[in-house]
């Protein structure tokens, strides 16, 4: 069931990420540490089943996974002596680290029977990678927003040029002036202009 399973006594880290690209990137990052065996949850496999099958020491979990609730219950529901209890990793002395982790959407579980070992470097690596993915996503969203606004402005300009028989520069100046007068962005003014044109056409 577990991919990349390597036998040995190294720390076994299970990466459970719903985003395959990000999960792959996190696994690659962790692979650089020779003291880790890095495992991933195959798509479509429930987190709790993967934990039972892979027997990891540490689980790094994407907080968007709805099946995280099952991991919370693994100890309480366990009927088998073979079951290894797991618990959410919490560092009371480093509240900032924990809050950053939750904000970034990653958390870590420890298998309680495993030898105690500092998992903070793993969590920090995961936080850094999640933050990078979030920045990329935010940048993409921003780029898409700018493109969408440009499309609206272009469409409104064309519409204005046709209605008012003006040049493109004159049309742009009209939207620019109106935006300044009303303290709003040109894209908002352009959107309203298009909406009013549609309304006129409909009536």
């Amino acid at each position, binding site marked *: 069931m577990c991919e990349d399973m390597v036998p040995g006594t190294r720390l076994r880290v299970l990466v459970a990420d719903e985003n395959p690209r990000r999960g792959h990137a996190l696994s690659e990052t962790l692979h650089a540490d020779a003291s880790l065996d890095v495992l991933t949850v195959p798509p479509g496999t429930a987190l709790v089943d993967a934990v039972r099958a892979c027997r990891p020491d540490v689980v790094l979990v994407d907080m968007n996974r*709805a099946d995280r609730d099952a991991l919370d219950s693994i100890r309480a*529901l366990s009927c088998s002596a073979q079951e290894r209890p797991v618990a959410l990793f919490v560092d*009371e002395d480093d509240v900032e680290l924990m809050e950053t982790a939750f904000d970034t959407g990653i*958390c870590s579980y420890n298998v309680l029977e495993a030898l105690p070992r500092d998992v903070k470097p793993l969590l920090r690596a995961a936080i850094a990678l999640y933050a990078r993915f979030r920045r990329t996503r935010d940048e993409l969203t921003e780029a898409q927003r700018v493109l969408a606004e440009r499309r609206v402005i272009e469409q409104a300009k064309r519409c204005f040029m046709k209605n008012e028989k003006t040049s493109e520069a004159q049309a742009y100046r009209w939207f620019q002036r109106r935006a300044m007068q009303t303290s709003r962005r040109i894209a908002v003014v352009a959107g309203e202009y298009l909406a009013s044109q549609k309304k006129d056409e409909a009536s």
Partner: protein
Amino acid sequence: MNTPLRIGVLKLADSAPVIMGQQQGIFARHGLEIEIVVSPSWANIADGLAWNRLDAAVIFAPLAMMTALGRRGHDTGLRPLGRISRGGNTIMLRGANPVEGAWNAGSPGRQAFDLWAMTIGRKPRIAVVHMYSTHLLILRRFLKMIDVSMEDEIDLSVMPPTDMIQALAENAIDGGCVGPPWGIEAEQRGLAFRVGGSATVLPDHVEKIIVASGKLLSCDATGRRMSHALRDAIAFCQQPGHRADIARALAAPVADGGLTLPLAATEAILPGGDARECVTFAGGSLLPSDFDWIISDMTALGWVDNAEHQMLMRWIAPVPANPAPACARLL
């Protein structure tokens, strides 16, 4: 600049008062700016409350209590703010019902279980949405009612309600105790039949409550405004005449302020709907009697010891009203 209060909810019909409170402008009328955080798991809700990522949440009492006791590994100031809903949980099983309708207590129920279990051909796998849920307590009481041991005669698992639908379809589980509208959704899809639920086990038990954490706790005036806004939103949701509007709002995509719930099943389980197990929106202050059975069951299951039992009794006791501090920093 004020920051909005963040309220955590899950994709369940009993989150309706928060959704409608926002959509109907009820929070705004009470001077509250709200951000609704639709969470993928109960663990996210509990961690959000424990680590000040949420100011309030709609949650079931057992998980709220375990979080308040520090079971997320972190001490958290968490207080119950009020009641949201009563009942609405359904116990669904796949396959064919050997008797007509819900199963009766005692030997008739036991016989029905044995007949059904024979057709399943394995130790029944029954799912609940979280370990520390009212669903598990209701399921345990139901099984006890029909003389079936939850500990020995079923395999219990935990999965999100939306996954239960798929798991029933694939025979990965044989049943579950689930909140609205997911039980009725399973029934409408022909995946499962209802054998019991809140109404048969413990009618009108308190189901979802709202708890406050973080900055909401630090300002009595804001907490009171939140309570009043929710009272109005709950009254709105309890009106049968609003059922279709609420169902449409809850069925809308999350990006449009909804919860992507299945429309027909949601309409069936809202107040005035035709489901046998409807949710009842019931606001107001929480009473110790709302929690007695929950704390008693949690103690019986070994989740809390006697000292924690006493702590919980203090936790549910009404907090004496304090003079409202000047909450200049807050809303």
